[in-house]
Protein backbone atom coordinates (compact mmCIF):
# COMPACT_ATOMS: atom_id res chain seq x y z
CA UNK A 1 0.00 0.00 0.00
CA UNK A 2 1.24 3.46 -0.90
CA UNK A 3 1.21 5.82 2.11
CA UNK A 4 1.63 9.58 1.54
CA UNK A 5 2.31 12.38 4.01
CA UNK A 6 1.81 16.12 3.46
CA UNK A 7 2.74 19.41 5.18
CA UNK A 8 3.90 19.03 8.80
CA UNK A 9 3.04 15.32 8.82
CA UNK A 10 5.62 14.86 6.05
CA UNK A 11 8.14 16.95 7.97
CA UNK A 12 7.67 15.06 11.24
CA UNK A 13 7.97 11.66 9.58
CA UNK A 14 10.72 12.81 7.25
CA UNK A 15 9.26 11.19 4.13
CA UNK A 16 6.77 12.28 1.45
CA UNK A 17 5.68 8.69 0.71
CA UNK A 18 6.51 5.06 1.34
CA UNK A 19 5.36 1.54 0.52
CA UNK A 20 3.88 -0.18 3.57
CA UNK A 21 3.18 -3.91 3.80
CA UNK A 22 0.20 -4.26 6.09
CA UNK A 23 -2.85 -6.38 6.85
CA UNK A 24 -4.48 -3.52 8.77
CA UNK A 25 -8.27 -3.73 8.49
CA UNK A 26 -8.95 -0.02 9.06
CA UNK A 27 -7.12 3.31 8.96
CA UNK A 28 -6.97 3.27 12.77
CA UNK A 29 -5.24 -0.14 12.65
CA UNK A 30 -2.71 1.21 10.13
CA UNK A 31 -2.06 4.25 12.35
CA UNK A 32 -1.46 1.95 15.34
CA UNK A 33 1.07 -0.07 13.30
CA UNK A 34 2.89 3.05 12.15
CA UNK A 35 2.98 4.57 15.66
CA UNK A 36 4.55 1.40 17.02
CA UNK A 37 7.44 1.70 14.55
CA UNK A 38 9.37 4.77 15.75
CA UNK A 39 9.02 7.93 17.82
CA UNK A 40 8.71 10.17 14.73
CA UNK A 41 5.59 8.27 13.62
CA UNK A 42 4.25 8.22 17.18
CA UNK A 43 4.68 12.01 17.36
CA UNK A 44 3.14 12.66 13.95
CA UNK A 45 0.01 10.65 14.86
CA UNK A 46 -0.24 11.74 18.50
CA UNK A 47 -3.37 13.86 17.90
CA UNK A 48 -5.70 12.35 15.31
CA UNK A 49 -8.04 15.31 15.76
CA UNK A 50 -5.37 17.42 14.05
CA UNK A 51 -5.18 15.03 11.06
CA UNK A 52 -7.24 14.14 8.03
CA UNK A 53 -7.04 11.02 5.88
CA UNK A 54 -7.77 10.36 2.21
CA UNK A 55 -8.25 6.86 0.76
CA UNK A 56 -7.47 6.65 -2.96
CA UNK A 57 -7.67 10.48 -3.03
CA UNK A 58 -11.12 10.69 -1.39
CA UNK A 59 -11.46 12.26 2.06
CA UNK A 60 -12.38 9.54 4.51
CA UNK A 61 -12.57 8.59 8.21
CA UNK A 62 -10.13 6.90 10.52
CA UNK A 63 -12.54 4.00 11.11
CA UNK A 64 -12.90 3.33 7.37
CA UNK A 65 -11.91 -0.13 6.06
CA UNK A 66 -8.74 -0.46 3.98
CA UNK A 67 -9.84 -3.45 1.86
CA UNK A 68 -9.02 -2.71 -1.78
CA UNK A 69 -7.42 0.66 -1.00
CA UNK A 70 -4.15 1.36 -2.86
CA UNK A 71 -3.23 4.82 -1.61
CA UNK A 72 -3.61 6.30 1.88
CA UNK A 73 -2.68 9.93 2.55
CA UNK A 74 -2.32 11.66 5.91
CA UNK A 75 -2.29 15.45 6.27
CA UNK A 76 -3.39 18.34 8.49
CA UNK A 77 -6.68 20.17 7.86
CA UNK A 78 -6.49 21.87 4.48
CA UNK A 79 -5.84 25.58 4.03
CA UNK A 80 -6.63 26.44 0.43
CA UNK A 81 -8.05 29.60 -1.03
Amino acid at each position, binding site marked *: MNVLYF*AWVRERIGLPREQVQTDAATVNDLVAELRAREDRYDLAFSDLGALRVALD*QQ*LSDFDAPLAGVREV*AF*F*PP*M*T*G*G
Partner: protein
Amino acid sequence: MRITVQEAPFDMGTEANAFAAGHTDMGAIVTFSGVVRDLPDDPLVAMEIEHYPGMTESALTDIATRAQERWSLGDVLVIHRYGRMAPGEQIMMVATAAPHRRDAFEAAEYLMDFLKSRAPFWKREITANGASDWVSAKDADEDALSRW
Protein backbone atom coordinates in the same frame (compact mmCIF):
# COMPACT_ATOMS: atom_id res chain seq x y z
CA MET B 1 -15.86 24.40 -16.49
CA ARG B 2 -12.11 24.95 -16.29
CA ILE B 3 -10.00 23.82 -13.34
CA THR B 4 -6.31 24.71 -13.40
CA VAL B 5 -3.66 23.90 -10.79
CA GLN B 6 -0.37 25.57 -11.66
CA GLU B 7 2.86 26.90 -10.23
CA ALA B 8 3.15 29.89 -12.58
CA PRO B 9 1.58 33.29 -11.88
CA PHE B 10 -1.51 34.23 -13.89
CA ASP B 11 -3.03 37.51 -15.02
CA MET B 12 -6.43 37.92 -13.50
CA GLY B 13 -7.62 40.49 -16.07
CA THR B 14 -6.72 38.22 -18.97
CA GLU B 15 -8.36 35.23 -17.31
CA ALA B 16 -11.51 37.16 -16.41
CA ASN B 17 -11.88 38.57 -19.93
CA ALA B 18 -11.36 35.17 -21.52
CA PHE B 19 -13.88 33.67 -19.12
CA ALA B 20 -16.51 36.31 -19.88
CA ALA B 21 -16.03 36.10 -23.66
CA GLY B 22 -18.56 33.97 -25.48
CA HIS B 23 -21.17 34.11 -22.73
CA THR B 24 -23.54 36.65 -24.21
CA ASP B 25 -26.46 34.86 -22.56
CA MET B 26 -24.96 35.43 -19.10
CA GLY B 27 -25.98 38.63 -17.29
CA ALA B 28 -23.64 38.19 -14.32
CA ILE B 29 -19.94 37.43 -13.97
CA VAL B 30 -18.47 37.23 -10.45
CA THR B 31 -14.73 36.95 -9.92
CA PHE B 32 -12.80 36.56 -6.70
CA SER B 33 -9.07 36.33 -6.12
CA GLY B 34 -7.05 35.38 -3.07
CA VAL B 35 -3.81 37.30 -2.60
CA VAL B 36 -0.73 36.65 -0.44
CA ARG B 37 -1.22 39.07 2.45
CA ASP B 38 1.74 40.63 4.21
CA LEU B 39 1.89 40.37 7.99
CA PRO B 40 1.99 43.72 9.84
CA ASP B 41 4.19 42.64 12.78
CA ASP B 42 6.59 40.25 11.10
CA PRO B 43 7.07 40.95 7.37
CA LEU B 44 6.37 38.01 5.13
CA VAL B 45 9.19 36.89 2.84
CA ALA B 46 7.18 34.26 1.02
CA MET B 47 4.24 31.94 1.16
CA GLU B 48 4.72 28.33 0.11
CA ILE B 49 1.79 26.19 -0.90
CA GLU B 50 1.98 22.41 -1.00
CA HIS B 51 -0.71 20.31 -2.65
CA TYR B 52 -1.65 16.71 -3.37
CA PRO B 53 -1.29 16.21 -7.15
CA GLY B 54 -4.17 14.20 -8.53
CA MET B 55 -6.43 14.65 -5.54
CA THR B 56 -6.30 18.43 -5.91
CA GLU B 57 -7.70 18.41 -9.43
CA SER B 58 -10.42 15.87 -8.60
CA ALA B 59 -11.44 17.69 -5.39
CA LEU B 60 -11.73 21.02 -7.22
CA THR B 61 -13.69 19.41 -10.06
CA ASP B 62 -16.02 17.81 -7.54
CA ILE B 63 -16.63 21.13 -5.74
CA ALA B 64 -17.25 22.96 -9.03
CA THR B 65 -19.60 20.21 -10.25
CA ARG B 66 -21.66 20.48 -7.07
CA ALA B 67 -21.90 24.25 -7.55
CA GLN B 68 -23.14 23.72 -11.11
CA GLU B 69 -25.77 21.27 -9.88
CA ARG B 70 -26.98 23.68 -7.23
CA TRP B 71 -27.14 26.98 -9.10
CA SER B 72 -28.04 28.02 -12.61
CA LEU B 73 -24.56 28.67 -13.99
CA GLY B 74 -23.23 29.13 -17.47
CA ASP B 75 -19.62 28.45 -16.54
CA VAL B 76 -17.17 28.03 -13.65
CA LEU B 77 -13.43 28.77 -13.51
CA VAL B 78 -11.00 27.84 -10.73
CA ILE B 79 -7.27 28.61 -10.89
CA HIS B 80 -5.14 27.71 -7.86
CA ARG B 81 -1.37 28.02 -7.59
CA TYR B 82 1.13 26.01 -5.59
CA GLY B 83 4.80 26.61 -4.83
CA ARG B 84 6.46 29.78 -3.58
CA MET B 85 4.94 33.25 -3.94
CA ALA B 86 5.65 36.74 -2.64
CA PRO B 87 3.34 39.15 -0.79
CA GLY B 88 0.90 40.76 -3.22
CA GLU B 89 0.90 37.84 -5.64
CA GLN B 90 -2.36 36.17 -6.54
CA ILE B 91 -2.76 32.71 -5.05
CA MET B 92 -5.97 31.72 -6.76
CA MET B 93 -9.13 32.92 -8.43
CA VAL B 94 -12.65 31.69 -8.97
CA ALA B 95 -15.12 33.00 -11.52
CA THR B 96 -18.75 32.18 -12.07
CA ALA B 97 -21.05 33.16 -14.93
CA ALA B 98 -24.82 33.03 -14.54
CA PRO B 99 -27.92 34.55 -16.08
CA HIS B 100 -28.57 36.36 -12.78
CA ARG B 101 -26.26 37.83 -10.14
CA ARG B 102 -27.56 35.93 -7.09
CA ASP B 103 -26.60 32.58 -8.60
CA ALA B 104 -23.18 33.94 -9.60
CA PHE B 105 -22.44 35.42 -6.14
CA GLU B 106 -23.71 32.47 -4.13
CA ALA B 107 -21.91 29.92 -6.28
CA ALA B 108 -18.65 31.88 -5.96
CA GLU B 109 -19.00 31.95 -2.16
CA TYR B 110 -19.80 28.24 -2.10
CA LEU B 111 -16.71 27.50 -4.21
CA MET B 112 -14.52 29.56 -1.87
CA ASP B 113 -15.93 28.01 1.31
CA PHE B 114 -15.32 24.46 0.11
CA LEU B 115 -12.01 25.26 -1.52
CA LYS B 116 -10.63 26.57 1.77
CA SER B 117 -11.17 23.38 3.72
CA ARG B 118 -11.90 20.56 1.24
CA ALA B 119 -9.22 21.03 -1.42
CA PRO B 120 -5.83 19.53 -0.49
CA PHE B 121 -3.65 22.63 -0.20
CA TRP B 122 -1.47 23.59 2.75
CA LYS B 123 0.07 27.04 3.23
CA ARG B 124 3.31 27.89 4.98
CA GLU B 125 4.41 31.43 5.85
CA ILE B 126 8.10 32.30 5.84
CA THR B 127 8.77 35.55 7.70
CA ALA B 128 11.68 37.97 7.89
CA ASN B 129 12.68 36.85 11.38
CA GLY B 130 13.20 33.33 10.10
CA ALA B 131 9.98 31.70 11.24
CA SER B 132 8.47 29.10 8.91
CA ASP B 133 5.02 28.19 10.14
CA TRP B 134 2.23 26.15 8.59
CA VAL B 135 -1.00 28.16 8.51
CA SER B 136 -3.56 26.55 10.82
CA ALA B 137 -7.04 25.79 9.59
CA LYS B 138 -9.61 28.02 11.27
CA ASP B 139 -12.75 26.69 12.97
CA ALA B 140 -14.62 29.50 11.20
CA ASP B 141 -13.68 27.98 7.83
CA GLU B 142 -15.12 24.63 8.82
CA ASP B 143 -18.23 26.32 10.29
CA ALA B 144 -18.73 28.19 7.01
CA LEU B 145 -19.56 24.89 5.29
CA SER B 146 -22.61 24.31 7.48
CA ARG B 147 -24.56 27.14 5.85
CA TRP B 148 -24.65 25.23 2.56
